[in-house]
């Protein structure tokens, strides 16, 4: 008997262990349960506080209790924050009675660290979140990990952050409004950064002019008519020179006017096609999501890439995910290219020119547009586990509206990490000890401009990004939990084919039908159908 019980125990445990081993993505639903209770207790808490805070709303807010705010950031490169924190905390103490405790997540550890911290309801108050990290804004809001900021019963934005809210462009507030655990509302403060997506040719100007062309020749050509220029330069520079320095996925977007569908984790099988003349209008396929790789546009594009590749215009390394990035950055620096692809942000040509030591020009190919992914590109959410949501909101408001605080936390301390030169920031060597991700903090437009940017940089920035238009389906994000199995399989198939096809290193004649067949075998049709039904539901709810 004893043995039988033991064997039963053993079997169950093994099954349990096997199930537990089935990847970390499946672990998320299990973690839902504690989250829900968390939301409930959190709802109860502000309700109990409500009378107190309401009283204070008129007579200024009660901030007599000192509070420590923990703040989890992404993409930091910070080894010594003591000087900055000393100054920032003295300032914050006086303004909000707050002590700041940043957790400097890096590109390498933020995903796992922050997700775990959120799921175990650790006492972190503010989390970075966005549409492309593991603590994805839409999904985690739905699971109730982020506090609704415009809750009708406790509208934190209205109470503490109207200044912040008013300075944000409409597209940002619109992009941040989603359906979460507490209904349709705002669950994080969007950062005012390079919010538009625009794809450009990155042109090596001296080399172009050496062969008697001007920048206008590039402006007037498109991908399919670049052949002559590429041929001339290839001839002149010799066999080992590859004039086209491409990033496969970016090039594809430039040529086909496709954009990423937020929430698609498969390597972009899903695409929405925009109208290249006016992205605010519906594109060639209307308001539907298409399976990009099966489209005629994609076929035409990869055939052209193949032709360019065979003629020796594209470096074979560009079709190999392992080598593409290293090769590209090395060749950009050494100037061994004529035309590259770049996902643009304002001022990049100046930065590139300076880094590479020759004149670099950016020639826009697609219009600047704002989609859900770019509008949710960097945000700050208040955790439902936070004990001080009010103070956290006040801090976010101050951070995004106070140039002194933003510059201090982002660029470091004056005299240590940077010096002022005619009122402009010039970084010192110490900057390498304190380098948070500039765009990942919030409103960058209140930063003191750097010497390289020039005094009126942010005016240009605001007019450039202010004039960018949003696409018709802004705010939509795809939730792939219903088709999780397909998503995994499809992303493997994509990894195998897409880059090589885009760079022309494999023959589309045989590889493209093979690719499409594999997509079909792995359930692309259900996947796209699910995405479209979600999009339809979203559009209906918008009416």
């Amino acid at each position, binding site marked *: 008997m004893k043995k039988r019980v033991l064997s039963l*125990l*053993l079997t169950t*445990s*093994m099954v*349990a*262990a096997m199930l*537990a081993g089935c990847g970390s993505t499946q*672990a998320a639903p*299990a*973690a839902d349960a*504690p989250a829900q209770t968390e939301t409930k207790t959190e709802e109860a808490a502000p309700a109990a506080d409500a009378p107190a805070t309401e009283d204070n709303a008129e007579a200024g807010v009660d901030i007599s209790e000192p509070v420590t705010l923990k703040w989890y950031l992404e*993409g930091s490169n910070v*080894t010594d924050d003591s000087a900055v924190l000393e100054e920032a905390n003295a300032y914050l103490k006086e303004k909000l009675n707050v002590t700041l405790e940043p*957790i*400097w*997540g*890096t*590109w*390498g*550890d933020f*995903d*796992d*660290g922050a997700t*775990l911290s959120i*799921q*175990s309801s*650790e006492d972190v108050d503010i989390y970075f979140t*966005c*549409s*492309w990290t593991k603590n994805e804004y839409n999904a985690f809001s739905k699971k109730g990990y982020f506090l609704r900021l415009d809750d009708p019963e406790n509208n934190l934005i209205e109470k503490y952050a109207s200044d912040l809210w008013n300075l944000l462009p409409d597209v940002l507030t619109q992009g941040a409004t989603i359906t979460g655990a507490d209904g349709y509302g705002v669950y994080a403060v969007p950062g005012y950064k*390079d919010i538009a997506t625009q794809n450009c040719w990155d042109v090596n100007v001296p080399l172009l002019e050496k062969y008697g062309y001007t920048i206008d020749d590039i402006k007037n050509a498109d991908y399919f008519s670049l052949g002559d220029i590429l041929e001339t330069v290839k001839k002149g520079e010799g066999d080992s020179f590859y004039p086209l320095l491409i*990033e496969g*996925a*970016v090039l594809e977007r430039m040529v086909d006017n496709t954009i*990423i569908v937020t929430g698609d984790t498969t390597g972009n099988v899903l695409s929405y096609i925009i109208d290249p003349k006016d992205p605010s209008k519906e594109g060639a396929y209307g308001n539907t999501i298409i399976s990009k790789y099966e489209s005629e546009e994609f076929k035409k594009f990869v055939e052209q890439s193949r032709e360019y590749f065979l003629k020796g215009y594209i470096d074979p*390394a560009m079709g190999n*995910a392992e*080598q593409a*990035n*290293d*090769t590209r*950055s*090395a060749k*950009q*620096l050494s100037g061994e290219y004529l035309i590259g692809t*770049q*996902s*643009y*942000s304002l001022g*990049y040509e100046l*930065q590139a020119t300076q*880094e590479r030591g020759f004149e670099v020009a950016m020639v826009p190919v697609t219009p600047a547009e704002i989609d859900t*992914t*770019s509008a949710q*590109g960097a945000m700050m959410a208040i955790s439902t586990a936070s004990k001080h949501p009010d103070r956290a909101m006040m801090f976010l408001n101050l951070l995004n509206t106070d140039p002194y605080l933003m510059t201090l936390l982002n660029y470091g301390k004056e005299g240590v990490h940077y010096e002022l030169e005619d009122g402009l920031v010039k970084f010192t060597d110490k900057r390498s000890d304190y380098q948070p*991700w*500039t*765009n990942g903090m919030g409103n960058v437009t209140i930063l003191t401009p750097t010497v390289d940017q020039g005094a009126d940089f942010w005016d240009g920035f605001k007019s450039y990004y202010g004039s960018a238009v949003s696409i018709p389906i802004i705010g939509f994000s795809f939730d792939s939990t219903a088709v999780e199995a397909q998503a995994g399989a499809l992303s493997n198939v994509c990894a195998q084919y897409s880059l090589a096809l885009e760079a022309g290193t494999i023959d589309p004649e045989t590889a493209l039908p093979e690719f499409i067949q594999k997509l079909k075998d792995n359930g692309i049709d259900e996947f796209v159908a699910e995405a479209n039904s979600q999009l339809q539901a979203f559009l209906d709810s918008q009416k």
Partner: protein
Amino acid sequence: MKRKLDNSVSLPAAVIINLLLAAFCLVCIIPFIFVIIISFTSEESIRTVGYSFIPAEWSLEAYRYVLELGDQLWRSYANSFLVTILGTFLSVLTVMMYAYALFRKDFRYRGFFTFFCFFTMLFGGGLAPTYMVCKNLLGLSNNYAALIVPGLLNPFHVIVMRTFFQTSVPDSLIEAAAIDGSGEYNTLFRIIVPIAKPGIATVSLLTALGYWNEWFIAMLYIRDAKYIPLQYLLMKMQNQVDFLVKNSAMIGAEAANIMSSLPKDSLRMALVVLIVLPIACAYPFFQRYIISGLTIGSVKG
């Protein structure tokens, strides 16, 4: 002499066995040699030719860069050494004492504690609960304890150790010690430990390996760069590169900027070499005990 002949195998069989084992050794060691070669390959040559056993151009660039990485590298090195040495000592001590208690037949709660230990080997609480207990309840975050305590008692090691006691320590020895007036601690540390040296060495090696290679625990509990061990430093670099490659389009032009400042292939391989070397040096040291452990075991049957 005759005895030896009985044990030996025929010549063809010996040749085949040796060839097979040699092939197996090669399979194990070639990837590592490859890593060493890549770490000495110039970045230019990796880019143009790819990885190769005979690189087009040799270079010390990666190692020069590693040495210039400066503080963080040495700090992580020191952390890894500290955690490995201290962790191994504490862990082996705990494991040995636990296993000794389980081994003693006159320990009343022996059954319960054996089950208690065995049970955790089969069932884990899952990541999030473990994380909460360690971090919130035990305060294991941003300190050396966080790197050591979670790996302190490995049930598998306890069972190995207990089995070793059972096969190599006769009960009569303990009785004899007791009759001679030796207290429990004295018996354990003065009589049992010297006999159990081979077993302890085996467990020490396993534990040391475990601590040296551990990066997951560091990822969970360490946020302060001060405490980062070497493995996690490497892991972070790798993750960073992977993440940026995957998301470069979302991060925007800044990504290109960050990418260019990140370590390249050869550098990562150089780090792997630096990580493997010290622990590879620990093998010969423990090997002596492990081999003698095998022989002791067989003699006593």
